């Protein structure tokens, strides 16, 4: 289903193209706080921050589906856990920024370990359904625990402020500072994801995705391979949830709902499952589409729905897959024996 061109090395001409594009992207991302407001408004800087966060969330879905072949409609659970861990530790427990961030890494990761113990045992359909069920259970739990979570109203908090050594601070009130913090965290997480998928574990993930029976006969403990991926995906989703809470100064029970999971799945599919930057491409394109269309037409989601269906039918590897196919064509690797 997911044929893979991503391991092929690129030859000279397209490699240059890729490098140029990468340099343009990096320069843009590094100068965005000055360039973007100059060009349009502060609003777009926040849109880019949001794209980065949703890219990270989609990366979590991608680790599961794109690399180990498990489609989860329950990643919202870890997104919500990340968001609420930040809100609860700072608002109710009065923790500082860094201890709260540490908690936001630990809680969703451990949570993923616990859920994974049960979920990855199950076959595909039951896995899909069980992940949704766990996230729903937390949704209803969050809705009913009003004193802690704020119920339907959510839990708001003031713009965070992080202490650094030498008396420096990170002021999240400043949109530019906030942007750089988010950029740094997301880039770090994508670097981690890159390391993981090109590691020995990464190769194991692909083996299990391609043919889990064969993988077990080869000697892989399919359960442990899947569990590892599930925990890593939970970590990524948790960090994304934390960033989104910090970004919007708010944790909402709706983060736990399966429709949030659905957003991650959509970005991944449109961008390209199994490709490192697929989630970035997907989140960027869909959010751009939203920003341009929603001003003109409030039912822009109709278009998103059509795009999803067209993707599943004509481009199951999404935009990144199309891009890889074009590159392959350019390098003459398109004609396979």
């Amino acid at each position, binding site marked *: 289903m997911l044929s893979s061109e991503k391991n092929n090395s690129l030859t000279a001409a397209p490699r240059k193209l890729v490098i140029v594009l990468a340099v343009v992207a990096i320069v843009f991302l590094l100068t965005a706080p000055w360039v973007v407001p100059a060009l349009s408004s502060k609003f777009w800087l926040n849109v880019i921050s949001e794209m980065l966060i949703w890219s990270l969330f989609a990366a979590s879905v991608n680790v599961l589906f794109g690399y180990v072949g498990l489609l989860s409609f329950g990643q919202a659970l870890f997104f919500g856990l990340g968001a609420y861990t930040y809100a609860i530790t700072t608002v109710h427990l009065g923790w500082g920024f860094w201890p709260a961030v540490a908690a936001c890494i630990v809680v969703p990761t451990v949570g993923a370990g616990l859920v994974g113990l049960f979920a990855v045992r199950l076959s595909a359909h*039951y896995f899909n359904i069980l992940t949704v*069920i766990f996230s*729903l*259970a937390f949704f209803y739990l969050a809705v009913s625990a009003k004193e802690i979570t704020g119920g339907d109203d959510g839990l708001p908090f003031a713009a965070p402020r992080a202490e650094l050594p030498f008396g420096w601070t990170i002021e999240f009130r400043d949109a530019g500072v906030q942007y750089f913090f988010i950029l740094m965290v997301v880039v770090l997480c994508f670097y981690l994801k890159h390391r993981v998928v090109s590691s020995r574990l990464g190769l194991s993930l692909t083996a299990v995705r391609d043919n889990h029976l064969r993988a077990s006969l080869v000697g892989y403990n399919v359960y442990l391979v899947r569990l590892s991926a599930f925990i890593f995906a939970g970590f990524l989703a948790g960090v994304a949830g934390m960033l989104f809470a910090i970004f919007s100064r708010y944790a909402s029970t709706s983060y736990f709902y399966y429709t949030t999971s659905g957003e991650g799945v*959509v970005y991944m599919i449109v961008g390209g499952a199994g490709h490192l930057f697929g989630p970035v491409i997907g989140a960027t394109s869909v959010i751009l589409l939203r920003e341009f269309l929603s001003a003109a037409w409030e039912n822009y989601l109709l278009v998103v*729905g059509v795009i999803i*269906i067209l993707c599943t*039918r004509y481009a*199951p590897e999404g935009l990144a897959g199309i891009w890889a196919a074009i590159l392959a064509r350019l390098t003459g690797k398109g004609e396979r024996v």
Partner: protein
Amino acid sequence: MDLIFLLAMNGLVWGLIIALIALGLSIILGLLDVINIAHGDFFMLGAVGCWFVLAAGLPFWVALILVPLVGLAFGALVQQLVIKPVQVSPSLSIVATFGLSLILQESVRATFGAAPQRISPPVSGTVELFGVNYDVYRLVAAGFASAVLAGFFIFLNKTKFGTRMRAVRLDKDMAIALGIPSNQIFMATFAIGASVAMVGGIVASPITSIEFRLGIDILPLCFMAVIIGGLGNLPGTVAAAVLISVTEGVLTAFVEPTGARIATLLFMCVVLLVRPQGLFSRG
């Protein structure tokens, strides 16, 4: 005691409506290997369709005939356009139905509006039932839903077409080898599933507030019924739908509705882990 009886009755009515949706979900999963995330939206379309028919000045029974027929055609069309091209991959087909769900919700929001609407039931008044005054329409709804469920099982077990559907569900490859036109079966299954969910929507429309998000909230309950009843066990699914709904209804006498929901979700987790074949299936 009266309160609990009332809550149990309401739970029963809703349980039968959920059973209508869950049955379609279950046969689509069993035959087409597709987890249909848009199935709750078919239920929503039924309710919205009923509202449009009534708004056009037509009586309720017209909606009851017209909407499911349109639903059959619509379901067949959706299966051909959306599901069939990606049916080889269960995962992609789930994603496709998520896209379909967005399309259905937004289409309804664009035409019907975002504001919830209510319609008045075709029959009103109350009857005395074990010393409690109970809404007549809800009794009629329960009776009608039961009749449709019975009709569905008769169709599945007594007609040639139903036999073929069961054959495909039991062994797809063998059925195809025997010359059963599987593509027609897949199309019909999806169409029937969609249509039955819409019947549920029509029946429910006078006792709920109609809005484009109606399907999002009901879908998890339907999945719970399918899992607790056992994948592929259709009578078990009906029993589970009623059981969940009545239990949740009665529990709301003592705890908040969300607490009742958490209890059923936990119960379902236990079922999934201890008896993955479902509560009402053997072996």
